[in-house]
């Protein structure tokens, strides 16, 4: 398959994610504090921040799971306040914690997710077969997911999150604990997905992975403290790595 160049996809008119002054408070605590950013179609956007900085709350708002307290946001062209159901149909989501039903087989998981997203039986069968074939999992498609090695489960979970061809996919620490080679293969599938026009928003605690993103943002205490390409950020802030920048921002001396 020949992915289209990112530049062609990125020239599309609307951004995949647009957030303006997006805010969420819990009682007296402001978890997300007026964040403004946009992600272009086909971009790989790294969404970084310390634990408790507000990433999860922001992602919950952008995926239509949590109503914002203020500001605005559109995801895949839909408003987070009024069109959360449309958003859910147009996004994919994968996290390390929970993605697949481990007692179900790979094929059963595909059928379940396909059914949830209203794919026809023919679509589920056709896309599922092709997915398993591409992943090299055809032979083990009828085994419970829990029997697969972690790296395989992660790849399968990513493919399942893309089954309904979402316009934006959210990946929450997708490579946590995975061996270094499998981690890199996973990033190649991210690139491939992005170059076919699907927008990717990804969180990670591996700072070397931040460097793989087209652009990143770093959240500190509910605000976006830095945003840009990894190269520009390092150059502007005079640091050698994103790891150093992260430490500088998250724990100012």
């Amino acid at each position, binding site marked *: 398959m020949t992915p289209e160049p990112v530049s062609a996809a990125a020239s599309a008119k609307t951004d995949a994610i647009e957030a303006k002054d997006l805010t969420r408070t819990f009682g007296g605590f402001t978890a997300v504090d007026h964040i403004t950013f946009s992600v272009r179609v086909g971009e790989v956007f790294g969404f970084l921040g310390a634990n408790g900085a507000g990433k999860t709350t922001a992602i919950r708002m952008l995926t239509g799971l949590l109503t914002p307290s203020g500001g605005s946001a559109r995801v895949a062209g839909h408003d987070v306040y009024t069109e959360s159901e449309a958003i859910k149909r147009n996004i994919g989501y994968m996290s390390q914690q929970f993605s697949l039903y481990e007692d179900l087989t790979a094929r059963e998981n595909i059928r379940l997710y396909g059914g949830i997203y209203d794919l026809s039986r023919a679509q589920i069968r056709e896309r599922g077969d092709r997915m398993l074939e591409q992943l090299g999992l055809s032979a083990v498609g009828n085994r419970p997911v829990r029997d697969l090695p972690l790296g395989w489960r992660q790849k399968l979970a990513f493919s399942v999150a893309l089954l309904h061809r979402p316009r934006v996919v959210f990946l929450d620490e997708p490579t946590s*604990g995975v*061996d*270094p*080679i*499998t981690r890199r293969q996973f990033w190649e599938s991210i690139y491939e997905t992005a170059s076919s026009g699907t927008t990717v928003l990804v969180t990670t605690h591996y700072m070397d992975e931040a460097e793989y993103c087209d652009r990143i943002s770093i959240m500190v205490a509910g605000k976006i403290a830095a945003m840009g390409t*990894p190269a520009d950020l390092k150059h502007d802030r005079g640091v050698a790595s994103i790891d150093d920048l992260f430490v500088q921002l998250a724990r100012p001396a």
Partner: protein
Amino acid sequence: MSTSVAVDNLVKHFGTTKALDGVSFEVERGELFGLIGPDGAGKTTLLRILVTLLLPQSGHATVLGNDVVTDMWALRQRVGYMAGRFSLYPDLSVEENLQFFASVFGTTIEHEHDRIAPIYSQLEPFKGRRAAALSGGMKQKLALCCALVHRPEILFLDEPTTGVDAVSRREFWDLLDGLTREGLTTIVSTPYMDEATRCHRVALIQRGRLLAVDTPASIVAAFDRPLFGIKTPNRYDALRALREYERVHSIYPFGEQLHYTDKDLDREPRAIQREVAEFLRSRGIEQVSVDTIEPSIEDSFIARMGTPETMRGDAA
């Protein structure tokens, strides 16, 4: 130096899965020893055997001279163990959790204050807070405190920094440095390769086998061929192109660069640099720089691990 941990050919199966496939190593007294490998490598199984929570099928291990199978009860008083999953009581406060663990070992917070003070001082402002409401980094500090409260002679920490942000990870390692300076032997497992450099010695572990046991510097020094870092704005295109390059031995992304090794061990590094850059230009990839670079632990791990799980034919 005396030996604190001696592991001899440990084997542990779960059904048909070989969690540990003949593991041997020693840890000296006072060492900060790292067990580095991905999920499923066998780190947790190994630590659980060493703290007497699991029995091996074969092989032997002693900790502080006590056999982990036959001297289990003597050993339990002497080891501190922090489990991989957050293992505190979420509905108890910080102080109550600590009191509980102290009382299990027949002691009190006050009595052990000097041992835990450097860490507990960071938690004290939140001592009334429920453990469930702590941040990830703070939870880990509390778990460490609870593992130390009975003054163990040796400490086993299972992935204390997993899922914790880069800053909190650094802070946690600073705490471990402090404990090591006081002479405590510590064995810590982690999936983060970059944390290897915080250890005196490390074991690289993959699929139940040790790939190497040595100081981080020696492991890196044993990297068997020149390593090149390639920078280009078209990183993904360059990666795909170099996969098809006839001289490539390995090529993979690493942070902002691609890491490249050449098949030919005897070739001049300068010649390799020039040829790789020329090859990329011939494929239409411009703005390329190729430099010789120092390998990291992660490069060494990749070189030693061979075929990863996702490339094997026997997926399940």
